[in-house]
């Protein structure tokens, strides 16, 4: 076995707890952070951590395919988010100038991005979800999967669902969807999907990433100012 492959395989022997802690952190950042850059970095880290967990249940090559698919999704989202941000800033600038011209006043400050919920609310909600995770994991453990990986699946699914409920904006909701699908992917490994199944799942990840990026761009074609 190649040295780097051996090194990576050894990661699989890590207990699920460090990975779970890492996933708790990354998913929480995705949910709580208001800047898409933090969210994307957290998503990237999340995919890598999920890949490490995949190593426990899949052959190395298949796990690598899953990680690569996830990692490739992040640049797609990045470019989409960059374009959206620049467009929004451009439109905000135009509107500020129009307001200033109408009122003959100095340029007003740029408005803060408005989100339906504040960071504190999301933080508290995430904490609540953590408690839900604890109680669900102890009372209704996920069957067919190792006990130390199951909480990771549940956590990712909960956070993903929470983000989908929280917002209908394509980018954050899309990241929530990808988070949920990551958690599902872990559980699906027990079904023995094989090469074709893993290939299709990875293609799904890529297509979903592409679709989410597209929707994020389309969403911003209204001309509305953030």
């Amino acid at each position, binding site marked *: 076995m190649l040295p780097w492959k051996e090194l990576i395989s050894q990661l699989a022997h890590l207990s699920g707890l460090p990975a779970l802690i890492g996933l708790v952190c990354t998913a929480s950042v995705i949910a709580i952070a208001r800047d898409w850059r933090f969210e994307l970095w957290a998503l990237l880290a999340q995919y890598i951590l999920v890949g490490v967990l995949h190593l426990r249940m899949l052959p190395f090559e298949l796990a690598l395919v899953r990680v690569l698919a996830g990692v490739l999704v992040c640049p797609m989202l990045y470019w989409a988010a960059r374009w959206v941000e620049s467009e929004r800033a451009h439109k905000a600038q135009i509107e500020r100038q129009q307001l200033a011209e109408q009122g003959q006043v100095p340029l007003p400050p740029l408005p803060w991005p408005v989100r*339906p919920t504040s960071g504190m609310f999301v933080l508290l909600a995430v904490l609540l979800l953590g408690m839900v995770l604890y109680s669900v994991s102890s009372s209704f453990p996920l069957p067919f999967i190792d006990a130390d990986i199951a909480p990771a699946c549940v956590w990712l699914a909960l956070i993903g*669902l929470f983000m*989908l*409920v*929280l*917002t*209908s904006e394509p980018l954050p909701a899309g990241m929530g969807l990808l988070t949920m699908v990551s958690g599902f992917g872990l559980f699906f490994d027990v079904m023995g999907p094989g090469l074709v199944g893993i290939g299709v799942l990875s293609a799904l990840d890529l297509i979903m990433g592409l679709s989410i990026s597209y929707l994020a761009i389309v969403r911003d074609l209204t001309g509305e100012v953030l």
Partner: protein
Amino acid sequence: MHGVFLTLLGPVLVLWVGALVLDLVDRFLEPQDRGGAEAFVLALGTASLLVARSQANVPIVFGQFLAAAGWTGMPPFLIAERTTWILALIIVGGSWMASLATLGQPTSGRAGRLAALGAALLFLFAGDWATLILAWALVDLALLYALARGRRTDGGGHEGLGWTGALSLGGAVALGIALLLGQQAEGSAWGISSRVDMAVSHALLQGTVTGSSVLVAALGVLAVLLRLMPFPLPTWQTITERDSDREDRPIVRVMLVAIPCLLGLHLWARLAQSGAIALGGRWFVLWLICAGMGLAVTAIKAWSTQDPDQVVTCVNGYAGAVLLLGAGLALRTDWMLPIGINVVLSASALYVSWTQGQYLRVSNLRSYWRIVPSLVALLSLAGLPLTIGFAARAGLYKTMLAGGKWLALIVLMAGEALLMGALLRVIFGIEGASHEEGQALEESEQVDAAAVSPAPSPAPETGRIRWMREIHYGAGAALAAAIVALGFAPGLLMIPGFGSWLGLLTVPIFAALLLPIVGAIALYRSQTAENPTQVFPAAIMGWGPLARRLLSLDWAYKLVESILQRVGSVIWATTQVVQGAGYMAWVLLVCLVVLLFVLMR
């Protein structure tokens, strides 16, 4: 292909093709024919209808391909008995006459009118209920289109259009539901009975009375009401009575009285023959109440205005009220038919020829012929013998007196007296008002005749106006002639002959016939005497415009519409909230509630 034009489909197709062609032409070109094209198409339609007479009682099946669609029973077909054919002839022929009276006026909305007439024929000839309902919807849609295209001004006055169309189409829906419920017993999904009686009686109900059958009858009663659309419902006429958008073209007015009345009569006859509304007897009083209100309101409206045009349009309300009265009394079909034909022909003759009074000159006896059509119409409305109105009135009064419906009788007689008095005021009042205009016209004609200037004179202009005037008069005269012809020979309508109606005449009926006429003449004389006696005191007459406004019930419709709009806003807002950004939260909430429910169990 040409054979289809010899059948009952022929007039329908002629009118629809004419509508399509004129609509396309109107979109690209400015009409130059001054209404001649519409009159021509209607003439073709009338001719085609006359040719189709030979196809009476022959079913024309046009829905054979529906069998492939899995329809059970007999496929849709057309059929026309003698009476149905006559109704169709009155509608199309009357509209043709009215179109002649509309020559020289704007042609907007003509495609819709022709399409509505074609659909009305389809309604009359429908041999099955599915076709009838479809035709109903087409009639309403075409009328709405015609009235919308015919509006002169943009904006305003749409509420009546919406209510009338919505309620009328709702009638079609109600009838459809009633028939589908009624057909359930026969196992046919489309209400197409497999037992088709050539006399067009389709039995809708089988077996014992059930809740469903009572509901069917109620829906049938409602459907007739909505087809007739009388007061207090927003009538078709009210759409055209907006001050900013007054519709005074004869053809529109004739269609708006002929189509609702005759189609409503036909529907009532079909339902009555099939026994569908027999169980709805308890709701016939609704018809009587509407009829009484309509008669009273018509009378008040006729006397609350000085505008002769508005007085004449009151005939429309009277027509619907009388028909409803007959339906509410459960008259025999052969007694209802002359009522409907009478009101339609009389109203049509009035609409077409009441303006001829402006050419009446007191000094010229020959000019008195100008008002003969209007007088004949008035006499027919009054029910004098030798007009079709006599058969209409005789049957109606006979039933009322036999049934002891004294209140209805008094309301009818009072309403007739007031309306006819007002109409007399209009018809003969124009003579006085136009006396100076008539003199001016004489003088202008004398000047033209004595003109020595070789320059091109306005003679062609005057000649065209004269021709139009004569054509308008001829149209009214033809309608008046039809009234008299049917009065002489009511047997043409497949109803009892003149002698039979005369046989119904008793002293009370004779008195009931004469009293409204006497009352009308007395009212007219009181108005035109040197010291005229006001029918209503001046204090009340001053409230005339307000009374008219209140009685038009616009305020009621607006109130209902306002309430419905608020309800609609609440529904809209609720759907926006649920379907908005928080949709997934709602989904999660519902799922959690369901989970809770399942766990509790």
